[in-house]
């Protein structure tokens, strides 16, 4: 059979099939490249999840937000009260800033010196260092008063600079319980049911103070109790009767239609 086919296979068919194969190979290579390697700058990927009317919410796992502290007048006043200690801190910070400046200056000088001749430059640099040190000491002796004055003038504006600090705020409260939509619906149904039943059920006072009556109720599509089964009786006729009466006369909430409820009455 195959032999017969081979014999009868025309050449143009072979050519066309080779062409088709080549084209398919080329296309597949191109698609493979596009799909798995090249995604482009504006590549978008969309995913739709739809499982039985359940909406899926993508919540960020953790988010950091840089916020600015609001500085109240009371805080400013408080800052002003603790003036002496604050002044010391500011002074020390200014000093350290100045020291940094001198260090950078020294570094530049050393670089320049090294660029010229190593030995003379070093000697010059050391001399400059000594001068700078002397100048610094002189400045230190003169400066404190002026610095204090400056700081005292700048004080009211100072807290703003200090309070603008980025803070990490956790959007997720550790104590809160995060539930999915299905759980939320179930919780709402339970609350609604509990409210309706507790409104309808009015037993006589003083019955079965420490006993439980567990009931299985099937709610029909009109919101009425279709089938009531006492899984656990309180052994008190009046108590059980009050439960049965309440369930048979009440209108169940829409969310419970067609559902089976297990209700433990206390």
């Amino acid at each position, binding site marked *: 059979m195959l032999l017969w086919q081979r014999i009868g296979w025309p050449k143009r068919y072979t050519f066309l099939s080779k062409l088709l194969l080549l084209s398919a190979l080329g296309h597949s290579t191109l698609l493979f490249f596009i799909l798995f390697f090249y995604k482009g700058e504006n590549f978008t990927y969309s995913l739709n999840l739809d499982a039985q009317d359940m909406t899926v919410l993508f919540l960020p796992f953790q988010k950091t937000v840089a916020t600015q502290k609001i500085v109240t007048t009371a805080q400013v006043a408080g800052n002003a009260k603790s003036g002496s200690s604050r002044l010391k801190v500011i002074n020390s910070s200014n000093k350290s800033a100045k020291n940094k400046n001198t260090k950078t200056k020294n570094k530049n000088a050393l670089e320049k010196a090294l660029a010229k001749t190593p030995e003379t430059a070093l000697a010059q640099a050391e001399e400059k260092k000594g001068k700078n040190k002397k100048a610094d000491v002189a400045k230190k002796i003169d400066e404190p008063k002026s610095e204090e004055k400056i700081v005292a003038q700048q004080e009211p504006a100072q807290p703003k600079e200090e309070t603008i600090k980025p803070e990490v705020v956790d959007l997720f409260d550790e104590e809160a319980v995060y539930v999915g939509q299905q759980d939320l619906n179930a919780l709402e149904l339970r609350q609604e049911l509990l409210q309706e039943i507790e409104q309808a059920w009015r037993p006589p*006072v003083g*019955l079965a103070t420490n006993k439980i009556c567990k009931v299985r109720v099937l709610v029909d599509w009109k919101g009425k109790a279709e089938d009531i089964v006492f899984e656990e009786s309180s052994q008190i006729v009046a108590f059980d009767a009050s439960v049965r009466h309440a369930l048979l006369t009440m209108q169940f909430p829409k969310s419970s239609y067609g559902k089976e409820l297990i209700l433990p009455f206390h």
Partner: protein
Amino acid sequence: MKKIFCTLALCVTLAVHAVEQVALEEVNARQFKKMSILIGLLKADKDATVVSEQVKKDLEFTGQFSVDIETVDALSSKNQVRQWFEKGYPLVVYLQPSSSGYEWHLYDTTTANMINGKKVAKLGSSKRGWAHALADELWPALTGTPGFFSTKVVYGKEVCRRGRNCKKYIYIRDATDTEGGSEELLVASPTISVSPRWNRDLQNPMVLYSEYTKTNVRLIAVNMKGKRKVVSDFEGVNMQVSYSPEGKEVVYCLSRAPHASHRPHLTSQLYHYFFDPYSQQACFKRLTSNAGNNFAPCWGPDNTLFFASDASKNGQPNICWYDFKNKKTAWLTQDGYATSPSYNPSSNKLVYTKMVNKIMQLFEFDVTTQQHRQLTSDPSNKDDCSWSPCGNLISYSAEVKGKSRLAVFNLLTKEQLFITSEGEDCSYPSWSPKYAQMPVIA
């Protein structure tokens, strides 16, 4: 292939028909309401009507049920029973008189099934007694607790002739009687009779009371036939007997030492009277020995005794708790004016009266939790508390417009109900235990 197809079809069917289950953790009653019950009276005659009316009063006295009576020609079919549900009755009691008693059948109107049914024999000639016996049988079937409708209340009542020559007699009446129709005179001696109390022998009901004589106040026992016997006639005051739970020992007050062997005293002291099986003799032991007055003894749990004593720090009466084992006394109240303790074993609670803003109010002490709780706050002075056997009701005397009336406080509904009329001066109520037969004066 067919098998696989059938299995798949079955699985699909089950999956489609599976009902979603919702389970709630706890349903608690937020509001309470009297339950409507119907008494269906079959073959109604005069007696049956009276009995059903009394049963209705008994059930409604508790504040838990609202009862209606309807005459029914015959025991209904299931559909007819279900019709009562539409009219708002979850339960129906069919009452049928017979020659020897009454038959009752309790039905659930939703299922039209009989829950319980019994026959109660007519004991005695009192229709009230039959009704109380019927209510006592019906009550456990409804609530799961023993009935108390056959109990009585004994009390002292002031009787005056033409507004003069007033005397205090001893009367008894049904505990659930608020109209006074069952009131019977027990003691009508031409003197003052006070502080009656019931004994604990459930077969032989008896009342012990104190009677004023020219020389002393003696203790007398009287049975339901009116037969009286002096039981304690020592010098001074002999009164306020309290029986032990078994009913074989008593504690009461004496204002003088009964024998020369006892140390003399001029104030009221408590004495314990019992039969000693070793010496085969009756023993008489003094329990208290202080300078104050000790009174209102009341047997407590685990061989203990509650009483009131003014030998306190503030010199006013307060409640004490005496232990027979180690012979030690503890103060339950110390900072006020508290008297009239009464203990109920079924609820394990003590009730007493305590002065609040110059008015004596009812207080409760839970022996289990050791907590005190004020029960009343109305402007009448209360005294002489006594528990019902069920532990849900407390009888006491309340002073209204200068006269003392008997009242019952319902612990479940928190309501106060007067059981004697406004014009009468009644005091010292004592609620009887549930005797084998309802005490009726012969």
